């Protein structure tokens, strides 16, 4: 019996090694560091592979860890393409000089507002900041007029956010650009006393829906995504768009770029071209992501408030400073 047990373990180990070993080592195609939602990136990757036969391997993570990771990896980065949810991460990699220029015909597929003037990265999708609130706890006339109002003592203990996420940090980076460092630092300090921290925007919305908290600062598509599924986590939730060029009306551009160190530059460029082209942008319209399409002539899902009606503030996406934001948030005790 004793020998049988160890033989069994050994045999299983060998068998699994034979089966799983190759599965882990097979040809990876292009490697995409994907900070976008896994489900969206998977749809893009599958569509691209179907069209071109080029395999795509996704490594999933977040904007900030990937951007810092790519900088740490330098020219030895195994990544070919970097996709983000927000642009500050793009700016970080760009300023480290690690992006190759995006092909001109890819850039031509996207309006100037949604791409880097330097030509180093291109917008692939967009999302709008919203205040998601519980409809039984807040009336429309009680809603904050501006994101800045949430720093007011009257909002103490009444709102939530996910400060460790790149989404919220992008909103702060917009605030920083629009209102300056002193005002942002003050706002963050007030936020620390006023707000409740959750991990992840979905979790914020779930808490708002359950009435644990009155409202939360998140992006718009979490609501639509849940409504399209079961609506279980959003049935008591409504979205408030700040509009009026308020910092809280910030529209964040998700970016895509090709690493200068890519060993498959042609395939990587083709992937970006697909994502920003008709096929990739239609995934945004018809899929489950509910992010805004940004391609020229591409339509977003008809359930969304049109991008042009959001009255977003004019923010230069190419200078959003993620390092400064994490420093300010660390100083405010939010991280």
């Amino acid at each position, binding site marked *: 019996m004793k020998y049988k*047990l160890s033989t069994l373990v050994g045999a299983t180990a060998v068998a699994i090694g034979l089966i799983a070993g190759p599965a*882990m080592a097979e040809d990876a195609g292009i490697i995409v560091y994907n900070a976008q939602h896994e489900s969206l990136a998977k749809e893009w990757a599958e569509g691209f592979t179907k069209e071109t036969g080029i395999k795509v391997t996704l490594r999933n993570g977040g904007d900030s*860890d990937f951007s810092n990771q790519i900088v740490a990896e330098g020219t030895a980065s195994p990544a070919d393409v970097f996709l983000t949810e927000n642009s500050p991460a793009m700016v970080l990699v760009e300023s480290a000089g690690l992006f190759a220029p995006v092909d001109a015909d890819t850039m031509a597929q996207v309006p100037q507002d949604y791409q880097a003037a330097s030509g180093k990265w291109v917008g692939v999708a967009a999302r709008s900041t919203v205040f998601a609130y519980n409809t039984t706890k807040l009336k429309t006339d009680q809603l904050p007029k501006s994101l800045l109002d949430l720093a007011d003592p009257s909002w103490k203990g009444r709102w939530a956010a996910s400060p460790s996420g790149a989404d919220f940090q992008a909103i702060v980076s917009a605030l920083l650009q629009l209102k300056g460092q002193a005002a942002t630092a003050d706002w963050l300090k007030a936020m620390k006393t006023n707000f409740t921290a959750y991990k992840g925007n979905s979790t914020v919305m779930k808490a708002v829906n359950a009435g644990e908290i009155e409202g939360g600062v998140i992006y718009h598509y979490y609501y639509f995504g849940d409504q399209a599924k079961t609506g279980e986590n959003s049935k008591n939730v409504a979205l408030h768009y700040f509009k009026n060029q308020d910092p809280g009306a910030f529209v964040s551009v998700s970016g895509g770029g090709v690493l200068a160190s890519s060993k498959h530059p042609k395939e990587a460029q083709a992937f970006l071209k697909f994502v920003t082209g008709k096929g990739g942008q239609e995934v945004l319209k018809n899929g489950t992501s509910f992010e805004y399409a940004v391609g020229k002539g591409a339509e977003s899902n008809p359930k969304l408030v049109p991008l042009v009606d959001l009255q977003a503030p004019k923010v230069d996406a190419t200078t959003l400073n993620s390092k400064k934001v994490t420093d300010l948030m660390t100083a405010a005790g939010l991280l």
Partner: protein
Amino acid sequence: MAPWLITAAISVSLLALVPLAFIIWIAVQTGWDTVSALVFRPRVGELLVNTTLLVLLAVPIAIILSVALAWLTERSNLPGARLWAWLCVAPLAIPAFVHSYAWITMVPGLHGLWAGVLVSVIAYFPFLYLPISAALRRLDPALEDAAAALGLGPWRVFWRVVLPQLRLAICGGSLLVGLHLLAEYGLYVFIRFDTFTTAIVDQFQSTFNGPAANMLAGVLVTCCFVLLGLEVLVRGEERYARVGSGAARYQQRANLGRATIPSLLLLLVTTLLALGVPFVTIGRWLAAGGTDVWRFDEIGLALGQTLFLALAGALLATVAAMPMAWISIRAPGPLQRLLEGCNYIVGSLPGVVIALALVTITVRIALPLYQTLFTILVAYALMFLPRALVSLRASIAQAPVELERAASSLGRRPLNALWSTTIRLSAPGAAAGMALVALGIMNELTATQMLAPNGTRTLAMAFWSYSGEIDYASAAPYAFIMVAMSLPLTWLLYVQSKRMAGR
């Protein structure tokens, strides 16, 4: 003793010290001003208070619960004691973050310190229950008889004779629980309770390997050392081995009488909380998700990769532990104790700290090893080396060296002699150790996420990614598979603890 064995043992220990050396090196490199700005700030204070309170509350509650459960299942005439004993170990099969996932499904608003204490106690009390029940089983009833004969009532016998003899078991178990509390990530994210580990991962997600993450890691390591030191202090140096000749007789089980119903109730409630809640939740989500959530291609791939990592990691940890285990049995001495100490210290470090160190080291100075299978297996080996070491040492100790000598004198060459005696005899113990390591790797999340090669997706990673998007139904099959694969391993643990007690 062959010099290559000593060299091997020393190199493993040196490798084990790399993460520690790394943190010190980063601190020195960062400079005192930045270090003090990052360490002495209110946020770190908050985290320190949270973490300390968690340990101070959860550990004593877990001790009391485990002593009560162990006494009931080992020393009383509780109906169905053997079944209850197994049910008290089974919660270990459920990864801590699955416990937490289950609880917030049941009680959506659950959060904060007390929620942390509740779920932690439920998830980790078996670490205390196992050694305490094993110790209780081994106690020589003669001591208790003597105390009773001298006029002590049953309660005072328990306080003055039984409990002091459980000290080692309680200390060891508490240390293990405490270290898990410090290292756990997923459990506390679900219930929104910030500890050092969650804050380090937050920083990692915001800055990759920024100095703030490394400094928090430094504070966390200090906390681990405080726990280790406390355990040594409290453990003391009393003698616990029985004196007297012959074998101890079997203990008499106490008659519970009217206390039977409340006792059964305690076990029932514990089982419901520790096993009922997770099983009902997973079942509920599986039912809600229907057949859609069983995406077999995805699940199959994750299962294959998880099994591969778990087995390869277990193999590596066992091989790495071999020289040390060998020396500690065949040639114990101060050097061996020192080396062994290094391994235990590193084994007590949270996965996030080891991963952070390996990420930075490979990316800066050993780039070919970056994001490779090799690096993640090394991380697993470092994290779980003590598990392999303990099992191996026990099984090598049971193989008498005389057999090996007899084999040699009958003409076998040294390696051959070793193979046909000691290695064969210690194989079951080594297999048990491997199983324990594999169990740990299967449910590991933070280090795997940070170190995994591109394209890796383990069961725990898939579970975490779905539950992060609050798609609890899609996460359920992964939770189910992790639990189903771990259950047989906890059974092994249970059987092993019985065998240790010789019963």
